[in-house]
C-alpha cells in the first residue's frame, strides 16, 4: 500500500474485556451464562444468557396425563423440588374442586419446610464458596444430606420425592419417623452456633457481603422479585402469611425482614428463615399424632381422569420466592396449558444484570448466589 492511501482509523478506547461466566462455571448456580464486560476489576455491563436448562417442561406436560406430570414437575427446580409438586397438585385440585384431607395438608407443610431447610443449607454453602470459603459448603451439603435421609424415608426418593398428587399425598409416614425428624432438627439446631462461628459471624464474609448487590425495594417490586430477596429489601411479603395455603394459618412463625437489601441482608433473612422453618416443622411434628384421617381424596382411574374445564393460579412460598402454577384445562385427560412462574425468572435475569453492573468481578458469583437464582426454574 502506498503511504498516501493510508487512513488512520480511530478505534474507541477499548478498556472492556469480555468475560464469560458460564454456562459451565463453578461460580454460576446451575447451567447459566452471564457475559460480563469488565474494565479492570469493575463490571461495566452484563448480559444474562439463559436457556441451557430449557427442557421443554411446559410442553411436555401438555402431552401427559394429569397424573403423569407429578413425576415431571419436581425436576423443574433441582435444589427445592417439593414446592413444585405441591403447587402443581394445588392448582389441579383447585380446578377439579378436590378437597385435600387435613392430615395430608399437615404432611405437605412438613415436606415444604424440610425442603426449605435443605435448600437454604445448600444456598449458604454455595454462597460461602463464592467468597472462597469451602468448609461451609461441605457442612451445608452434609447437613442437607440428613434432611435428604428423612425424605428418603417418608417419600421414597431423596431429592425428587414425587410424593404429592392431586388429592393428597401417596403414602403414610413410617413408624417412628416423627422422632427422627425431631432428632435431625435438634442436630441442625445444635450446629447453628458452629455455622455462626464459621460463616455468619465471620468478619471476612461480612465484609465481603455487605453492600454487594443492593436491591432497592422499589426496584425489587418493579421487577417482581419475591421471597427472601424482597424481604431483605424491607417488604415483609410472604405467601404463607399473606395468601395462606394448606395449614399455615394455624402455625406460628415470623416473617423475618432486613432493610439493607444487600447480600448480607439476604443471608441474614435466610438464616432467620431456617430457624423459623425448624420452628414450623416442630409444630407440625407435635400436631401430627393427633390428626388422623385419610391421606388422599381418591381421584378416578388416572388413565381416564378428565379434569373439568377451567383454569387456576396456585402459589406457594418456595425458598426462592413466590412459585406459582397457572394451569388451564379444557376438560380432557391432559392439561391444555401449564405455565410455571419460577421465582428465579424475576431475579436471575434483568435484576442480576443490574446488580452486577458497577460491582467487582469477584462479586459477580456472590451476587448470583446471594440472590439464590435457580436457573432450572428460569428456563424450565
Amino acid at each position, binding site marked *: 500500500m502506498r503511504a498516501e492511501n493510508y487512513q488512520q482509523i480511530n478505534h474507541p478506547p477499548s478498556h472492556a474485556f469480555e468475560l464469560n461466566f458460564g454456562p459451565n462455571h463453578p461460580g454460576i448456580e446451575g447451567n447459566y451464562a452471564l457475559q460480563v464486560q469488565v474494565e479492570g476489576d469493575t463490571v461495566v455491563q452484563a448480559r444474562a444468557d439463559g436457556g441451557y436448562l430449557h427442557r421443554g417442561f411446559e410442553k411436555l406436560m401438555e402431552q*401427559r*396425563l394429569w*397424573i*403423569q*406430570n*407429578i*413425576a*415431571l414437575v419436581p425436576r423443574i427446580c433441582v435444589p427445592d423440588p417439593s414446592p413444585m409438586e405441591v403447587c402443581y397438585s394445588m392448582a389441579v385440585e383447585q380446578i377439579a374442586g378436590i378437597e385435600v384431607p387435613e392430615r395430608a395438608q399437615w404432611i405437605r407443610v412438613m415436606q415444604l419446610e424440610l425442603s426449605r431447610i435443605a435448600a437454604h443449607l445448600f444456598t449458604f454453602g454455595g454462597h460461602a464458596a463464592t467468597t472462597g470459603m469451602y468448609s461451609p459448603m461441605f457442612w451445608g451439603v*452434609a447437613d442437607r444430606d440428613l434432611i435428604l*435421609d428423612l425424605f*428418603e*424415608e*417418608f*417419600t*421414597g*426418593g431423596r431429592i*425428587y420425592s*414425587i410424593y404429592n398428587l392431586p388429592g393428597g*399425598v*401417596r*403414602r*403414610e409416614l*413410617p413408624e417412628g419417623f416423627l422422632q427422627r425428624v425431631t432428632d435431625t432438627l435438634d442436630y441442625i439446631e445444635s450446629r447453628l452456633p458452629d455455622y455462626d*462461628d464459621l460463616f455468619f*459471624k465471620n*468478619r471476612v464474609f*461480612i465484609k465481603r457481603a455487605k453492600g454487594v448487590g443492593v436491591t432497592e425495594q422499589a426496584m425489587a417490586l418493579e421487577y417482581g422479585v419475591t421471597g427472601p430477596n424482597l424481604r431483605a429489601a424491607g417488604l415483609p411479603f410472604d405467601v404463607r402469611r399473606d395468601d395462606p395455603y394448606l395449614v399455615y394459618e394455624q402455625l406460628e412463625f415470623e416473617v423475618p425482614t432486613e432493610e439493607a437489601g444487600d447480600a448480607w441482608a439476604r443471608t*441474614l433473612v435466610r438464616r432467620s428463615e431456617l430457624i423459623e422453618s425448624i420452628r414450623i416443622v416442630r409444630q407440625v411434628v407435635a400436631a401430627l399424632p393427633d390428626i388422623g384421617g*385419610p*391421606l*388422599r381424596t*381418591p*381421584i*378416578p*382411574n*388416572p*388413565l*381416564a*381422569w378428565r379434569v373439568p374445564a377451567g383454569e387456576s393460579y396456585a402459589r406457594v412460598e418456595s425458598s426462592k420466592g413466590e412459585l406459582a402454577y397457572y394451569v388451564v384445562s379444557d376438560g380432557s385427560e391432559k392439561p391444555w396449558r401449564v405455565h410455571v412462574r419460577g421465582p428465579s425468572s424475576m431475579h436471575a435475569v434483568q435484576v442480576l444484570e443490574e446488580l452486577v453492573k458497577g460491582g467487582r468481578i469477584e462479586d459477580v458469583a456472590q451476587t448470583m448466589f446471594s440472590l439464590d437464582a435457580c436457573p432450572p426454574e428460569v428456563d424450565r
Partner: protein
Amino acid sequence: MSDYNDEGSLLRPLRALSFLGRPAVTEPLEPRLAAEGYRGFHLNEHAECVGCSSCQKICDNAAITMVEVPELPNDEAKGIRNLRPAVDYGRCCWCALCVDICPTGSLSLSKEYVHTCTQEEIDSYFMLPNETGMHGTFYGKGWQKTETSDLLDLQRQEMGERPAELRVDNFDEIVDGFTPEQAMAEASRCVQCGMCHDACPTGMDAPEYIRSIYEGDLEQAVRWIYQSNPFSHVCGRVCTHRCEDACSIGVRGTPLAIRWLKRYAMDGVSHQRIQEITQEQRAAESTGHTVAVVGAGPAGLTTAWDLARKGHKVVVYESRQQPGGMPRYGIPEYRLPYEMLDRDIETITAMGVEIRCGEEVGKQVTMEQLQQEYDAVVLAIGLHLGRSTRIPGSDHAHVRSAVELLRQVTEEGTIEVPEEVVVIGGGNVAMDIARTVARLQRQQWGGVKTVVTALEAEENFLADPAEIREAAEEGVTICPSRGPQECVVEAGQLQSLRTWGVCSIFDQQGRFAPHYDEGDEQCHPAGMVIEAIGQMSNADQLLGDMLTERLEWDRGRLQVCENGRTSETWLWAAGDCVNGPDVVHAVADGHRVATSIDEVLRGALKHA
C-alpha cells in the same frame, strides 16, 4: 442476633478446639441399604403378574415394553397373558406410578439402587424385572402398593336391585340398571387391558364400548357392540360374562360390570335408532343365495343376521310359536323381559331375515326338503329337552322337567303350582325354575315353599352365586349335598322326594364322584318334583334315520369342523346342540358358521 460489630475476644478461635472432642462423621464406602419404601429398581412377581400392560400405559417416559415370555402360562379365559414388563432404565424416572396402578399388585420397587457397567454392556440398563432383582440378589422390597397409594378403584358400582319382598310375587325385571353417573364411574375404572375381549367367545370389543360410554357417546357404544353381538339386549342381562372372569381389576377387586354396562348402552339408545345404526352395515345388493336355519335361538338368529347383512336370503324355521329359543322359553321374565328380547329379534328381522314360526323340521318340513330348496342349511336346535334322574317314581305325572315347565310358563303365562315343590339340580336352570315357582306360589298360595336339592355342595353349584343368593332371599330353601333316591308315591299321589346325604368326594383327577351316606335320609314333602339336572336334544330324530346314518358324530353330538360344518357339505351346526348350553358361545358359533357359509357360497358365486 448479636452485634456484628462486636470484635469478640481474641480467644474465639480456640472454640474450634471443641471439634477435637466430637466424634468424626464417617460414612461407609459400600452402598448402604435404602430406607423402607425406597424407590429403587423394579421387582415383578411373574406368577402374579397377568400381563395386562397397565404399567406400560401409565409410564410417562415410555420406559416399559411388554415382552413375551413363552415359558409362562397364557390363558385367555382366565385373563392371563404371557407378557411381562421390561424396563428401560435410561428412561425410567422411578416415580412408581406403575406400581400404584398395577391391578394385581405384582409390581414393586426394590431397595436396590446401584448399577454400573461398561459401554459394551450398556444394554444391561434394559432388563426384565423378576422376583429377585436386577442382579439376582434380593435387597428387599422398597416402594410397594399400599391402600393409600393404590390408584385404582377396586369396588364396583352396586347395581340397584329390587328387594326380595317387592319382587317375589311378580315377574318384573329385578335390576334397576345403572344411572348415568354410575355408568360413568364404572366405565372409568377400566384400564383398557383387553383381557375381556380375549376371553369373550365372540371377541366383543368391550374396551371400546366402555370407552364410548365413558365419553358419553352411547350410539358409538352400540356400534361397537353390534360388531360382535346382535343379541345384546339379551346378553347385557343374562350372559355368563366370561369377560368379567378375565378382567384384570377382578384379580384384587370386583371386576368391571361389563355386562351391566352393555345393558346401559343398549337401553340408552332408542330401538328405532339402533335399527338405523345397524342398517348402516347392510349389503347393497342380494347375492341370490338362500340359506335355511333350523331354530330361532341365539345361534340360529346370529347366523341369520350375519348372512342377511352380507346379502343372502335367510329363512329361519322355528318349531315354537315365537322365536327366541332358550332366552324366551328358558329364561324367566324377571331376568330378561320379553320386550327386550323382542327388540333384539326385531332388529334382526329388519335386516331381511324371515322367521317362520310353528314349522317344525321333521313334521311340517323335512331335512331333505331343506337340502333341496336351499344352498345351505344350519342346524341350531339347542338343547331343548330336559334329562331325568330316572329314579323310582320319576315317571309320575307330577314329576316334570324344568326346561319343559319353563317353556310352559312362557307360553301360557302361568301354571298351577302345588303348595310344596322340590327342585332337583344346582345349576342356573334349577334356580330359574325354583324362583319362577316361588313367585307363582306367592301368587297362588300366599307363601313360598320351594326346596332346591342338589348333589353338589353349595360352593360347587354350577349356578351363578348371585342367582343362589337371590333365590334364598326370595324364600327358596337350598339343600346342598342331597342325592335323590325316590319320588315317593302313595295311592297314586306324589308325596315327597326321598334323598340321601352326599359325602362329596373328588377323585385324584378332580372328577366329582358322589358317595352316599345312607344313614342320612330325608324326605322333602312335594306336590311336584322338578328335575333340572341337565339338557339334551333329539337331533337324530329331527334329522331322520338316513341323514343320521350318513353324518359323522362325535361323542354323541354332531361332528363339526372348527367352522361348524358337518360331514355333509351343505349342513352346518351351531349353538347349544354342538357346544353345550351357553348363550354367548351360541352367538360366537353363529358368527363362525355364517362366515364359513358366506365363504363357501361366494366361492360358488365366483364359479357361477
